[in-house]
């Protein structure tokens, strides 16, 4: 097992001495350029669904990112197993895998900027630092990124930890070496430039206090800061066998309608609301807080008619009780409506037995489904299984493509 795992790492983990040597994997951006001019930027990198750095993830999509000290072409590092998340914004790296020292951003008053990133299951604390980054041939310069669990910032403010959940400042608690948030907005906060939002950005001197932050210092979706192909990204994954598979590989393509390999074609464009949400209808119920999200590891919805899994003997608090365990595979459907009125009617999906899946050694499961905490107006969270066998484009707010104007999700 260990050697297999090492192989997986070898696949994505390459230590680069210079940024130029770190092109990233995957097919190139199809040229087709007629006449002279520079060749198009390589806009495609490889992604993989594997067991992750803890050798225990399921339905979790990873890629590699090259990070450099701003302005340097030699102080660079390529980091594997960065989770690809269309449900968040910004690049965040665990300090324990970072061999570089990145300069911390400072506010106008000279205080250092730090962030408490809130995920549903907990929070990650660390400074906002500047980095040059490269993915495939795409580059962003002096990009604000979060360094999670940085030894220079060890005192977690009570207001941060008080938002609840687990402190996720190590790879073992976070489950990845970092996260690449490429959702359909630029910033990880709606109005942090004017409001000191509770438990989010902090100005740090001898201690840290909540602060408003100019937009240009907030942690952005890196795609929006690329020199080219910066209006969105496309996730392409193959279909996965019903019973599961291991190490499913696909592509992450940057830009939409900017090169010949990222054309919208006849995709259905679903505009999302200010919370990146869509209206899904399941079992006749409209669920207004629904979303499509590569960062969710299953299909999450509520259907009381489907049996949930039993708790394993001796482990009554196992999370598996929140997942579905039908005796035979169920064929279900959901309709998805965008804010633009466009509809994807009767999108079919299958629900399998989560207990059976977990007994296998696979890490990609198209039929993994579970119950969802009830959102304000009801939610259907269509996670990574949605992406299997599809080409899903995420256009950022304000971006214009031949198919529409972001923020949208198209497939």
């Amino acid at each position: 097992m260990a050697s297999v795992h090492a192989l997986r790492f070898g696949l994505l983990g390459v230590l680069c001495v210079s940024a130029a040597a770190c092109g990233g994997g995957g097919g190139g951006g199809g040229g087709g350029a007629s006449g002279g001019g520079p060749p198009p930027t390589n806009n495609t990198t490889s992604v993989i669904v594997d067991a992750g750095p803890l050798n225990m993830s399921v339905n979790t999509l990873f890629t590699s990112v090259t990070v450099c000290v701003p302005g340097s072409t030699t102080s660079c590092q390529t980091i594997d197993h960065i989770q690809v998340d269309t449900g968040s914004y910004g690049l965040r790296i665990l300090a324990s895998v970072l061999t570089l020292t990145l300069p911390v951003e400072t506010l106008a008053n000279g205080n250092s900027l730090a962030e408490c990133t809130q995920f549903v299951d907990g929070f990650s604390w660390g400074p906002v630092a500047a980095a040059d980054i490269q993915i495939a041939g795409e580059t962003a310069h002096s990009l604000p990124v979060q360094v999670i669990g940085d030894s220079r910032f060890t005192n977690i403010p009570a207001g941060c930890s008080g938002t609840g959940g687990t402190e996720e400042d190590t790879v073992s608690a976070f489950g990845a070496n970092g996260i690449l948030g490429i959702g359909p907005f630029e910033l990880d906060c709606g109005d942090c430039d004017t409001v000191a939002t509770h438990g989010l950005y902090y100005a740090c001197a001898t201690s840290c206090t909540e602060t408003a932050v100019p937009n240009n210092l907030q942690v952005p979706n890196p795609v929006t800061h690329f020199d080219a192909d910066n209006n969105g990204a496309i996730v392409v994954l193959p279909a996965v066998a019903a019973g599961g598979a291991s190490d499913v590989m696909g592509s992450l393509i940057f830009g939409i309608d900017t090169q010949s390999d990222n054309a919208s074609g006849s995709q259905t464009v679903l505009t999302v609301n200010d919370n990146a949400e869509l209206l899904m209808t399941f079992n006749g119920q409209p669920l207004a807080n629904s979303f499509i999200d590569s960062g969710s590891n299953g299909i999450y919805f509520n259907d009381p008619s489907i049996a949930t899994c039993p708790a394993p003997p001796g482990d009554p608090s196992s999370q598996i009780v929140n997942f579905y365990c039908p005796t035979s595979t169920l064929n279900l459907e959901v309709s998805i409506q965008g804010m633009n009125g466009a509809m994807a009617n009767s999108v079919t999906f299958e629900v399998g037995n989560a207990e059976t899946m977990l007994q296998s050694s696979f890490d990609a499961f198209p039929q993994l489904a579970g119950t969802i905490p009830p959102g304000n107006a009801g939610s259907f969270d269509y996670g990574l299984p949605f992406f299997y066998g599809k080409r899903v484009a995420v256009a950022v707010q304000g971006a214009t493509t031949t198919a529409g104007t972001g923020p949208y999700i198209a497939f």
Partner: protein
Amino acid sequence: MPIFHSDDFKRAALGGALLIAALIPQIASATLGQPEITVQTDVARSHAAIKSSEDRSSYRVHEIQLPSGTVMREFVAPNGNVFAVAWQGPTRPDLRQALGQYFDAYSSASRSKLSDRRHVQIRQGDLVLQSGGHMRALSGRAYLLSAIPSGVNIGELH
């Protein structure tokens, strides 16, 4: 299950409303399982304000607005204790304050094979804690099973 007479409840509600009026705008948060008066405790920290207080048939709900957009709702049973807390917004509110002795349960689930960053559902003794959503739109609720007044549909608690 305490049953009360509607007059008692109205009187209690009025008293509560007066108390709330006296505390505005400092009221921030009550604590799950504790008397409604715990609203005083968390005051200055979050600069929140009560947006509304509404008496429903078998409980009272306070809607508390944080300046950064998060809304918290606190459900008070006729016996005066907070039996449920719900939140929704760009970030979570001060749950250490709002959940009190139940706060640590939120971090009790360690990372397992089924973990992702979008779902937490914990049942620990009397406590049910459910947290969901995604970056820029987080929501959740916590309630005490034995403290829910009779006739309340938990679907209303959001």
